[in-house]
């Protein structure tokens, strides 16, 4: 069996993608947490190439994060792409969001937003490590926002597959 190789993988240590076809993808991060102890300290997180989010500093899940004033108070990851070089009638992007949850007692919570609406209130379950976004079109650039809304969890990265 052969596995499909990701078109790009964005991680804390490698947050940009570009290619000769003028395609780009970027991972922005606005607010993460560090403890003085492993594995949530800076050195351990750097070594494991992850971000850590603390439940006590989660964003208010009742706010509307399509509003810039609310977004500036939130902790979130922004995924931006411009993959017009790949655009075609049947071209889509499969995007894997990778994570780990610290303990079984507190699931993580991520609100997935576009600029127009909440797309999904996603629970991050202990023992699970990814969820999938199927993005139907690459005809224009686009941003997704992943708002930290609860739990103690690690962000591992985004892998994009142009299919």
């Amino acid at each position, binding site marked *: 069996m052969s596995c499909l190789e990701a078109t790009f993988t964005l991680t804390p240590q490698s947050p*940009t993608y*570009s290619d*000769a076809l003028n395609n*780009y993808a*970027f991972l*922005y991060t606005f607010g993460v947490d560090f403890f003085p102890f492993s594995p949530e300290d800076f050195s351990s997180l750097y070594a494991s190439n992850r971000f850590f989010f603390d439940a006590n500093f989660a964003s208010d899940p009742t706010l509307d994060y*399509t509003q*810039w*004033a609310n977004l*500036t108070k939130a902790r979130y990851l922004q995924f*931006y792409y411009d993959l017009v070089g790949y655009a075609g009638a049947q071209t889509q992007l499969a995007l894997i969001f990778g994570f780990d949850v610290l303990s079984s007692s507190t699931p993580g919570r991520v609100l*997935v937003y*576009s*600029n*127009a*609406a909440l*797309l*999904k209130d*996603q629970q991050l379950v202990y023992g*699970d490590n*990814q*969820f*999938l*976004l*199927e*993005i*139907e*079109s690459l*005809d*224009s*650039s*686009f*941003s*997704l926002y992943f708002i930290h809304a609860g739990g103690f969890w690690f962000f591992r990265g985004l892998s994009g597959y142009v299919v």
Partner: protein
Amino acid sequence: MAIIRVTKKQIEAANKAREAALKKDPDFRLHEEQRQRFEEAARAREATLQKELKTAAARKEEQPS
């Protein structure tokens, strides 16, 4: 595994909402302009790098073995 589907319609609505927010909110506009400047600089660096790689590859091919 949980699957979230993002349709072409949702992408179009998001881009429309973004355009409207850029007009309405000067703070958001400033942030987006700054973000774009950083991205353009990154793209320019990448273009230069690709050009240099091409030139280096062409030179290597020209060299007699």
